[in-house]
């Protein structure tokens, strides 16, 4: 009885952590919904087999890489070309994984596999809040999991809806613009030192300029430019 009573608050706390993470993910899920629908609609007209194309939602799990993959498969590209293109687009995820890895040290291999599998731009955004040092590690893991699982389930659903029902969100609402605004809300208060401000500004401007490059490499190019500038400034400040 005592152990039951002792466990009850922990369980309530776990549920609260999961829900907090899910709540933090909601605006991002809303922001990626139009993209998920667009992916489904594109897949429907791409010429790629529907089941294989939709399966990229859980196998590849990254909108830009999925779009590139089904586009190339639809055009009859070889498997090697598809895999190489997806690798280039997904490379930024290694950066996220590197940043979150220290928080996952000492956890089970199964947890690290699951946490890494669920890692994509919005879950990294929520992850930076989960592991901001305000929560004990178990609570932070649950917060991350709550957000990441909601995103995963939502993504599978909206890509399937896009494939079967077509575009259902009016384009005039510009809901995809919520994502960059949400990122502004995270970056601006966090950019306290001038090195971080310069690094972030360089990354944003380079990514805009690099958006003309093929294969959606713009974000990765912007990140590398921002990191180089920031690292140089940090080194000269020491």
């Amino acid at each position, binding site marked *: 009885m005592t152990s039951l009573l002792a466990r009850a608050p922990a369980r309530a706390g776990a549920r609260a952590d999961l829900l907090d993470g899910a709540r933090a993910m909601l605006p991002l899920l809303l922001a990626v919904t139009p993209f998920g629908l667009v992916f489904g609609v594109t897949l429907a007209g791409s010429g790629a087999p529907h089941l294989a194309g939709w399966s*990229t939602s859980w*196998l590849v799990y990254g909108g830009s890489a999925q779009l590139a993959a089904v586009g190339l498969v639809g055009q009859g590209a070889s498997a090697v070309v598809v895999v190489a293109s997806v*690798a280039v687009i997904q490379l930024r995820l290694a950066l996220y994984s590197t940043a979150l890895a220290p928080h996952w040290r000492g956890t089970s291999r199964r947890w690290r596999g699951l946490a890494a599998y669920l890692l994509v731009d919005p879950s*990294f955004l929520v992850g930076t809040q989960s592991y901001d040092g305000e929560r004990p590690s178990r609570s932070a893991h649950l917060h991350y999991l709550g957000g990441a699982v909601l995103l995963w389930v939502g993504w599978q659903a909206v890509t399937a809806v896009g494939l079967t029902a077509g575009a259902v969100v009016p384009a005039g609402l510009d809901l995809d613009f919520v994502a960059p605004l*949400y990122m502004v*809300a995270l970056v*601006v208060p966090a950019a306290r030192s001038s090195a971080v401000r310069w690094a972030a500004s360089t990354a944003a*401007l380079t990514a805009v300029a690099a958006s003309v490059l093929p294969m959606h490499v713009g974000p990765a190019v*912007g990140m590398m430019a921002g990191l180089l500038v920031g690292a140089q400034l940090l080194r000269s400040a020491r």
Partner: protein
Amino acid sequence: MNAWMAVLGAGAVSFLIRLLPVAVLSNRTPPAWLDRVGVLVAPVAFAALAGSAVAASAAGGAGELVPRLVAISVAVAVAHRTRSTAWTVLSGMAVLWLWP
């Protein structure tokens, strides 16, 4: 068959890219440079994603880019002043929706 090979290969490479840094850093101390650069990763990643999202959503040309740049600038000012996620997002969306 080729489609499934491509999709399965793309899935495997995606998982490896996500897992490798976690696997490598899980049982050794991260190098010192990683600690230093680590503080930059999140702001740099968000800024780059925001930049390319703005560019992508303004695919229609300058007519679409100007209201988005104004909306982002207003959002930056609001974020700086209020540090509130809700006000930042609402102010930016309001500029975009009310743009003549």
